Structures are given as C-alpha cells and as structure tokens.
C-alpha cells in the first residue's frame, strides 16, 4: 500500500459499535478524525505528544493515545470513545457517576481521557493496592483535582455499578 501526500483513502473504523468508512489523508491523527470527521468532540486534545492523556481512547480493548495514531493505521480496529459511556437516555455510566460523586473532575478537560483510561481497569480497582492503582492512572495529567478525587472515583465505580444492579 502506498498513499501520496494529500491523497485520501477510505478506512473502515468501528467507533462505539458503528462502522464508518472515513476518507483520510495519511497524516491525519485519530484524535482529529474523531473530532473533525466524525464530530465526536468528547475526545479532547491537550499536548499532542503523548504526555497529557486527554485524548486517550480504547483501541481494540486497550487504552491508547489517539494523538499518537494515524487513522490510516487502524483499518478494521474497534475504537471506543467517551461518547460510548452514558446510556442513550443520558444515564451516566457507573464510572462517570463515581467521578461525579467523588469530585473526580472540576473543569472536565482531562475527564474523557481519565474515563477511557480507567474503563478497562475499574472492575479490578477495589482489589488493587493503592500504589498499583495510582501507577495505572499516572499517565493522565489533571490540572484541577489534585488526583485524590480521581483515585477515589475509580476505586468506587465497581461498587456503584453493583449497587445499581442490585437495585434493579
């Protein structure tokens, strides 16, 4: 495969369960394609060099920096963004609910990345030693909260989810 500068090719991306055929140039970043081509502006962009974590989404089951992937690399990949979390009727995902309860956010700029980074691990979080949980969350910069609320939120999300299940 060879794609010249400026040339557009169609890539099949599954985003939040919907398959899109997106025309992209080789140098277009996943973060920009999500935001500008697909209108999914929940994925935020901070540093564009991998350091801040705002743009973190889930790619094929694992968290990844959307600003460090070219969309063209991701033919056939399954991508989950923050838009996949809340239910269609607006009910918050337990992880989001937990962030709300524990003051895991203030301005909310880093929050989409925090949520997607935490999503694959929040079910194990209650059993994780504090240092391990903090290490798993350490790639994400938050300028507001001081982190304690985020750590508490991730640790408590599974309990909130179970509580909800029991109430049903």
């Amino acid at each position, binding site marked *: 495969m*060879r794609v010249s500068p400026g040339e557009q090719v169609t890539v099949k991306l599954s985003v939040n369960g919907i398959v899109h055929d997106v025309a992209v140039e080789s*140098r277009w970043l996943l973060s*920009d394609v999500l935001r500008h081509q697909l209108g999914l502006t929940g994925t935020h962009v901070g540093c*564009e060099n991998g350091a801040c974590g705002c743009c*973190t989404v889930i790619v094929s089951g694992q*968290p990844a920096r959307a600003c*460090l992937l*070219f969309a063209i690399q991701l033919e056939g990949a399954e991508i989950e963004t923050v838009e996949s979390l809340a239910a269609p009727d607006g009910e918050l995902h337990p992880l989001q609910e937990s962030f709300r309860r524990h003051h895991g956010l203030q301005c909310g700029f880093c929050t989409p990345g925090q949520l997607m980074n935490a999503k694959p691990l929040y079910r194990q979080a209650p059993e994780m030693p504090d240092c391990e949980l903090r290490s798993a969350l350490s*790639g994400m910069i938050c300028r507001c909260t001081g982190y304690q609320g985020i750590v508490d939120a991730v640790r408590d999300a599974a309990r909130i989810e179970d509580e909800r299940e029991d109430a049903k």
Partner: protein
Amino acid sequence: MPAPKDAIVKPPPFTYHRPATRFEVDELLGEYGADAKLLAGGQSLVPMLNMRQMSPAHVIDLGGLVGEPSVPVWRGAESTLWFGPLVRHVAVEKSRAVLEGAPLLSKAMDMVAHPPVRSRGTFVGAIAHADPASELPAVLVLLGGQVRVRSHNGIRTLAGQELYAGPFELTIAADEWIDEVRLPPGRRSDRFAIEEFTRRDADFAVCGVAATVREVGDVLVTALAFFGVGATPRRFELSAMSSDDITGGQLDLAVRELVAARLEPHDDIHATAAFRRHLAERLAVRAVRRAATSERSTE
C-alpha cells in the same frame, strides 16, 4: 461538518507505505533510505512528527507485516529470547518467557511509560529510538543482547553496544533496519535489580541504573548500565567483591570511582549534573545491594 482542511493537519505531509513483508521493507529503505522513517508503535515517532521536529518524505508502517509474532519467543539451540519488530511493550510485560529468561527486562518494563503508551509502543522501536533516558537500551547492553540488522544488501548481527552512536542516533546505515533483537539466556544463579528516579511514575528516568550480580567462585562480579546519564548505554564491570564488600563500604567506594571516572552527567531542566551524579551513585549502590541480596531470579 468537516473542519477546514488546514485545521486538521499537524504532522508534516509524507508518503505512507505499508509493506507486507520484511523484504519489501528492505526494498523501500533501499529506495528512500535517508528520506524515510519506519513507523513501529509510533509512540516516539509521532510526537516528533506532531512537533515537526522532523519531516520525512516517506513513512514506512511496519504494522502491516504479515506473520510477525506479537509476543517474545524462545528460539535456537541455546534458547535465545527473540523479539520481532511488532512485539509491543504490553506483550513483553505479560510474557512468561521474559519473566523466566530475562527477569530484569520484566522489571524494567514496569518502569517504561504508562499503559496507554505501552499498549502501542514496541520493544524493538524503543531499542531503535536510542533515547538515552530509556531503560531498554541499557538492559539490552547490560544483558549482552544482540540486534539483527538487515537491508537489501544482506543481514548482519551487532552486539547491542555497537548499535549506539549517540543520543537518538544509531551506527547503522540509512537503508538498514532492525528485524530482531535477541537476549541470551541468563544463568540460573544471576541476580538483577533496576532502580530509577523519575518525576512521575513510569515516566522517563532523570537517572537510573540496571545491575547484574553473578557468582564466580566465592566472589561476586557486578555489572552496571546507566540510563538518563551519558550519551549511549555502556556496560561497566566492577572488580570482584565478596558479599561482605557489597554490604559494607567497599561497594560505595567502587561505585563512586566508577561514576567519577566513566560518567559525564549533564545539566537539564530536570536535574543539575551534580544531582545526577549523586543519583547515579546512590541508585547504583542500592541496585547492587538489592540484586546481591535478592532471591535468585528463576528459583
């Protein structure tokens, strides 16, 4: 809905190639060599493109290579641990073969970046990136690993040490690339430790050191490789010591001498040269003591 085109491009324009075989990579590099960059996990290359620190005319994505193993594997009569160009950090971190054959690498991998970077970054990419602050080239050199380098002209094997020319710089030619990294099987009695100082968990090290301790008769032979200090990773051996020397002051003296004679710590925004020298000494002493008193690795 699409934004104006200019708003959505940051990396400079390049021609994108996705070869399916190693042979096609050889051909592409043979043709474009100095104007081309390989793309493995992209966790170091894409930041450099986004910041426009470089603008290669061609980017060759290794992600389309067919039949490449995604995990480290044992190979050959002497059971070398073999890493192909698509083995990601997360696969090294979880590998049983690595835990048994190169436990130092398992420990080092814990210190490499955060999960969303480990999920894409590759071991061979990190070896090739030659970041002096990275744990992985130091581990390669300390363990006596080798890299296999290839081009359309053929294949050759280098000792890890011979790969590095300077910070972010390799000795290999513009049309050459690395298709395998190999680590020799450790001896059962070898013991290891790795220590580093970072500004946040799992970030690049301000200074760090990996150590191996091997019993030779009734003395202990210690080797060290530093990262975050010095331009390229090098392996240093301390003169043989008894285990009392290691727990006592002899070790501190030997390390201080080594650091004074062989390392040239630099100043930067994270640390002064004097602080780096202090870290190099203290972390080395701590690493050697930890290694010497640790459980044997594979027992």
